[in-house]
Structures are given as C-alpha cells and as structure tokens.
C-alpha cells in the first residue's frame, strides 16, 4: 500500500490500536466482560426459563438488549476515553504535527470499537445458544450482527465529541455517567415493556433504545423500523455536529 495515503494510515493506525488493546487486556474486562456477565446473570440465570416480552423468550429478547449495551459501551469507551487520553497527554498533538489525516485516526478507533462490538455480540450469541436455548436462522444472526455493528456509529460520534470535551482523567467518569443511566432508561437492563409508563415515554429520547428496537426487529419482533432508523440517523447527525464543533474548538479554529 502506498505510504502516506489515507488507506495506508487507516490500516496502520487500526493495527496499532488492535495491538495496544490486546496487550493491555485490563481494557477488555469492562468492555467485553460486563455485557457478557449481565447477559449471563439476567438473560440466562434469572429469567432464563421465563417468557419474556414482545412475544419472545427472555434469552432472545435480552440478546438484543445486552448486545446493544455492549456495542454502545465499546464505542463510548473505545472512542471517547481513547481520544481524551491521547489528546490530554500530548500524543495526539504530536500526531497532528504530521500529515496524518485526522479522519484516518478517528476511522481506525471507530473500526476497532466496532470490532469489539462484533466480538461482544458473538460472545452473547454463543452464551444464548449454549445455555439459553436461543435458536435462530443464520440470516437472523447476521441481521442482528449487522444492526448492532451499524448501531455503533452514533456512539462513535458521541465518543469522539466526549474525547474532545473531556479531560483524560475525567473522561471515564463522564462516559459512565452517560452510559449507565442512558442504558437503564433505554430499557437495556429491564425491558421497556416492564417499566412504568412515565419511564417508557422517556426511552424514546434515548438513542440506545432505538438500536435495541432495531435489534429486536432483526430477531423477528414487529416494530416500526423506519421510525427507529430515522431517529438513529437524527441522533447521529446531532452527535457528529457536536464532535465537529468540539474538534474545531480544540483545533483553535473557532476563535473570535
């Protein structure tokens, strides 16, 4: 690949990102471990035998919920905390003095976040199949994987904004403050159908809710796909605009 081109930088940055992550496995424990643990505890142990919501068995329903939970976390932490730390420590500044295309840097972090999203989804699917009696066609599996992977995009944008707005030390705390309440309100821990009416109406304003609805659609629940997809496109636009503003502010381009 020709050195200095966008694709060459994207490939080499992605490789570096993967190496960094696999050499510091501590990063993987919360990102991959928590969704898997929650799914095992709630989806399999606690509600494994019970009929779920929206006409699905609990293990299948919660596959969509905790899959969303995992993908959102990988994007927010991989992208947000990663950028905040490298920016705060001057590493990104050194890179900015080189001709590295900034979009290749963000693209690499996004790719790696998505790869982790896929790994999380595959782990949950394996757990569900082995211990939860989940049985779906190959097409359904692929569709679920596709929805969850594409669903990570708005959170990569939000993570990017967070990376530019938060300092390296505060970024993980802020990411959690966004991630955990938003996950709860989106019905990722407890199905929306089981929530009080007031909370159900809040869920509509939570972007992960829409991903989980599309994920449920992928596994066969009737939902208004256009509505949820449209909402996600809207959220993506808002988060991207926020990320661009935050980037430009940091880059010194929005001075008076």
């Amino acid at each position, binding site marked *: 690949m020709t050195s200095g081109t966008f694709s060459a*930088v994207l490939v080499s940055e992605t490789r570096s990102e993967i190496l960094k992550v696999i050499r510091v496995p501590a990063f993987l424990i919360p990102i991959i471990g928590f969704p898997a643990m929650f799914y095992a505890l709630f989806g399999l142990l606690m509600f494994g035998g019970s009929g779920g919501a929206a006409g699905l068995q609990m293990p299948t329903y919660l596959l969509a919920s905790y899959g969303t939970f995992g993908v959102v976390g990988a994007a927010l932490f991989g992208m947000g905390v990663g950028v905040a730390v490298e920016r705060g420590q001057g*590493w990104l500044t050194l890179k900015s*003095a080189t*001709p590295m295309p900034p979009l290749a840097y963000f693209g690499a972090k996004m790719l790696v976040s998505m790869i982790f999203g896929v790994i999380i989804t595959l782990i949950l699917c394996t757990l569900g199949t082995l211990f939860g009696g989940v049985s779906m066609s190959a097409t359904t599996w692929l569709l679920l994987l596709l929805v969850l992977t594409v669903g990570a995009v708005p959170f990569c944008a939000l993570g990017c904004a967070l990376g530019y707005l938060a300092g390296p030390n505060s970024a993980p705390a802020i990411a959690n403050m966004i991630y955990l309440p938003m996950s709860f309100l989106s019905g990722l821990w407890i199905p929306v159908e089981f929530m009080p009416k007031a909370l159900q109406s809040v869920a509509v304003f939570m972007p992960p809710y829409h991903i989980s609805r599309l994920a449920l659609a992928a596994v066969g629940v009737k939902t208004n796909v256009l509505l949820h997809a449209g909402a996600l496109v809207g959220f993506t636009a808002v988060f991207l605009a926020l990320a661009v503003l935050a980037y430009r502010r940091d880059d*010194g381009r929005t*001075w008076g």
Partner: protein
Amino acid sequence: MSASGNRTAANEPAAELQAVRVRYGAVEALKGIDLSIERGRITVLLGPNGAGKTSAVRLMLGLIPPHSGRVLVFGHNARDAVAKRRVGAMMQVAKVPESLRVTEHIDTFRAYYPKPLDRASLIEAAGLKGLERRLFGNLSGGEKQRVLFALALAGDPDLLFLDEPTVGMDVETRRSFWKNVRALRENGRAVLLTTHYLEEADALADRVVVLHQGRIVADATPDRIKQTVSRRRIRCVTSLELTDVRAIAAVDSAERDGEVTTILTPSAEGVVRTLLLRDGSLHHLEVAGAALEDAFIELTSDALEVA
C-alpha cells in the same frame, strides 16, 4: 539519510512568520512578529516561560492558526498537509502509548509520509539498535527521547523542530544527539531548537532568536549576542567580605560559592584594580566575557523592555 535538501531553491526560507499575532483570551502571546528560518542552519529559540516560544512553534507546526499575519512552511500554509509532509517534530509528550514496540511506533509514523526513510536508517540515526523489539513503556527516559527523535525523522524532513530534545538524556547520549543534529544541518536541513540548556544553545546554534513578552528582542549568532552584554564576569579567591565586595563601585552582583567569588560588572578593569589594592592575598583571578546565560538574563529582564 537521503540527500533531499535541494528539493526547492536553497535560498527559500524553510519557515516564515509574517506579522504574526496570537492571542489567548485577553493575553497576547505573540505581538506581531516576523521571523524567517533558513535551511542549513540551526536556529535556537530562547525565551523565558510565557515569552511566546511555544506559540511560535505551534504556529509553524500548523497546530494553531495565527489571529493575524501569515505562517508559511516552504511557501505553503503551515496548516496544510503539503507543508506538514516536509516537517518533523520532536515535542514533549506526557505519555506515549506504552504497549507498542519501538518498530511499531516507527512504522506507524512512516505511514504518514509519502516518502518515509526506511526503518533501518531511522533505527541507526536515532541510536536504537538492539531496542527495536522493546515495548515503549520499558525504555529509559533517554531511550524514549531517542524514539521520539526517530519519529521526527520518519518523513525525511527538510525542517526539523526539536522542543527540549535532550531532557532525560545522559551527557554522552546528549553529545551524540548533538552530532546527529549537526549532521542534519550539513545535509541542508533547517533545524529549529528550543531548549532550557543555554550551554546546548551555545554549542549548537548558528543563530539565536530571543523572544520576550511576545516580541523578538535579539536575533544574532551566539557570539554576537554575548557581546551585546556589557557585563563581564570576574572570578577570584579573596579574603574580603562579600558585603564589602558588593559595595565596590560598578559591581552589579557578587556571589560566593565555596572559596570562589563571582562578580558581574560592566567595568572589569576598575573593579579588579580596587580588589587588588584592598586584598594583597587575592589569587586565582579570572576575567571572562559573559556567558550566553548572562546575555539571556539581561535581554529578558524587564528593565530592558524598551527593546
């Protein structure tokens, strides 16, 4: 290292600041400065903290835009990738990703440039032989600086920025680093160095630019700069009390370190005459011109703000 110093006219400046102003909120960091960095020379940028050094470097690296004026690197806007392809920078980084190997860091940076130096030459030039497979986090402070030097050279730059490059290096490593920097100059590259070690500035610089409160207060060879300082330095061993020495006419300052008394004065002959008259036992007398450090202190003292 390939000889690429002649890619453009040799007399074209490597970098130029034209009437550049930079403001941070109400603070004006650079108050309209003009500066041109030539190729084949080592230019040292000196100045106390807050003088505007960092802003000047960040402008030329394309990291920030000026509020007014122009910043050109080889004739291009410093913010453009075209300009950045010909620039290398060694800066202070609080933390470099520690779980990557030396060669992995080098290859990541090589990928940014259309015509990077090959990996083996970079390892050789930065003195990293034998450390190729080492994780960055397992390197010593001086070794880490050498990796950052290799990253700065990755694109075979025509203009090299070195910001406090020898921090954490032992004396020997520092000498060999200086040799490498001089070799780059011989190769026609422009080098811009900022340092807190005035000895380093004196040893390396072809030209010293002193910034103070956002303005250039001096721009000359290290020798010329030292000559602008009228004061000279007298060293001797004397039995006179320090307070008595300080009371001698035209003595600006007198300090004692162990046995040796050091006196700064614009009138060395007069002071020496008085000292010898009053102390018959005075010995180890030495009179020297001011060091770069004295010149620097004089140039950046607020009394001389008129400059």
